[in-house]
């Protein structure tokens, strides 16, 4: 029997009545009060997620930048100290080993925050390719990570405004942490990286400031509404960035693993594309369902904001245009869907 890892906040979750589930080798809260109220809290006010299961890798040394530039798809040279960048770890076929955010801590030191399910794969991948003058370390056991997200999150935490994809060291009610202007919900917010021992105090402070505790269930519906891909579902080592619509994080004028293959796919045009769709008949698409016109659903759920079934899936490239009708095989029942522009959900801009 596999033993599940627990985050430093496990007791807090249990005390709050969370429903705990296994996820990527961890015992994690999937919901507290319910996925829908938690989702709405993040869209309208402020929610907090324990995402301490995510991995943290540090790459340090005079050639740390060279190592990462050769392994990551985005142009790392464009990231200044204090900046962050969404990027992909790619394989020789242009497939996606993982998607991650790299933070430039100083001239010669970078932090990578990676998916829990890939933390070991990523660490081994980097370690095997280390060059003289670069050192890769796994800090995952020393760190906890709280994502505080929502339109009122900055105000509730008493933080100053800062541009997205930047970070600074800071503190919340006396608890020191790294304050990252990043997230996975499509809302304003921060991700707070904190020493494991300090995580309960930080969690308590954030709840005292009015953040609603949110589980992985709401995290999934929030990211799907804004079409952020989930590694293992929408992107995998077998899918490439161009087909996934992630060409914008691939600096094809730089040299990194798999770049030749990605250049070829870009030039020829991908055979299939990751499309977002909305159900036009009452039904909830789920990962693995067949799309009758070709391809399959890679993520699906109910959109709590739109109250309709939504999803993403790979379809033949010519069917990826918004407005195209698709038919989803919902456990033997054909149900109509329509391709829409990403993101599926966008807050109505105030005039």
């Amino acid at each position, binding site marked *: 029997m596999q033993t599940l890892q627990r985050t430093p906040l496990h007791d807090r979750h249990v005390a709050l009545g969370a429903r705990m589930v296994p996820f990527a080798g961890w015992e994690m809260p999937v919901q507290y009060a*319910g*996925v829908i109220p938690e989702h709405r809290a993040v869209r309208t006010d402020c929610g907090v997620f324990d995402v301490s299961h995510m991995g943290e890798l540090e790459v340090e040394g005079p050639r740390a930048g060279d190592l990462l530039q050769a392994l990551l798809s985005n142009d790392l040279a464009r990231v200044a100290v204090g900046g962050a960048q969404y990027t992909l770890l790619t394989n020789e076929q242009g497939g996606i080993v993982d998607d991650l955010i790299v933070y430039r801590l100083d001239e010669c030191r970078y932090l990578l925050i990676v998916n829990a399910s890939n933390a070991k794969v990523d660490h081994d991948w980097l370690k095997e390719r280390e060059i003289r003058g670069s050192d890769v370390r796994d800090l995952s056991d020393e760190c906890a990570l709280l994502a505080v997200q929502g339109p009122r999150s900055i105000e509730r935490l008493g933080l100053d405004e800062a541009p997205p994809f930047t970070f600074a060291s800071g503190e919340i009610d006396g608890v020191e942490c790294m304050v990252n202007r990043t997230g996975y919900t499509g809302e304003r917010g921060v991700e707070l990286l904190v020493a494991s021992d300090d995580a309960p105090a930080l969690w308590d402070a954030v709840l005292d400031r009015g953040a609603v505790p949110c589980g992985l*269930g709401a995290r999934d519906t929030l990211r799907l509404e804004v079409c952020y891909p989930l590694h293992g579902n929408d992107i995998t080592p077998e899918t490439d960035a161009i087909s996934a619509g992630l060409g914008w994080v691939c600096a094809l004028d730089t040299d990194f693993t798999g770049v030749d293959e990605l250049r070829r796919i870009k030039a020829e045009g991908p055979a299939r594309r990751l499309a977002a769709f909305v159900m036009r008949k009452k039904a*909830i698409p*789920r990962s693995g369902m067949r799309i009758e016109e070709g391809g399959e659903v890679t993520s699906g759920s*109910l959109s*709590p904001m739109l109250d309709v*079934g939504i999803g993403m899936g790979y379809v033949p490239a010519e069917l990826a245009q918004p407005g195209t009708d698709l038919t989803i095989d919902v*456990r033997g029942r054909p149900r109509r869907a329509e391709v829409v522009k990403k993101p599926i959900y966008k807050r109505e801009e105030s005039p």
Partner: protein
Amino acid sequence: MAATESYPDDLRYHAEHDWARLDGDEATLGITWFAQDALGELVHYEPPEEGQTISKDTPYGEVESVKAVSDVISPLSGEVLEVNAKIVDEPEIVNEDPYGEGWLVRIRLSAPSEADSLLDVDAYRQLLADQ
């Protein structure tokens, strides 16, 4: 608001967490408090057709939460007289009132004696306690 846990003693129960309210040769069917709690907030009900024949111990519909899909197992055999259309539009009513407004179908029994094999409330509570 989600209902608080309860199992009315006038109902008969099926081990797959379904209930039946018997009324002569008809019955009203639904899912128990335990079933709706395990699923979480219901967001979709896929009902059978009215007039369709359903069979004891087999699925007659589906209920879905944000995260999960579950078959609804019929505790009895019969013909579907009425689907609760309100639940198709507002499935969360099942969470709020699983034994009242949250009923799923009304059927005409084709084998009324099947009811003898269902659990009474004490037996169903025992089954929950043993899980």
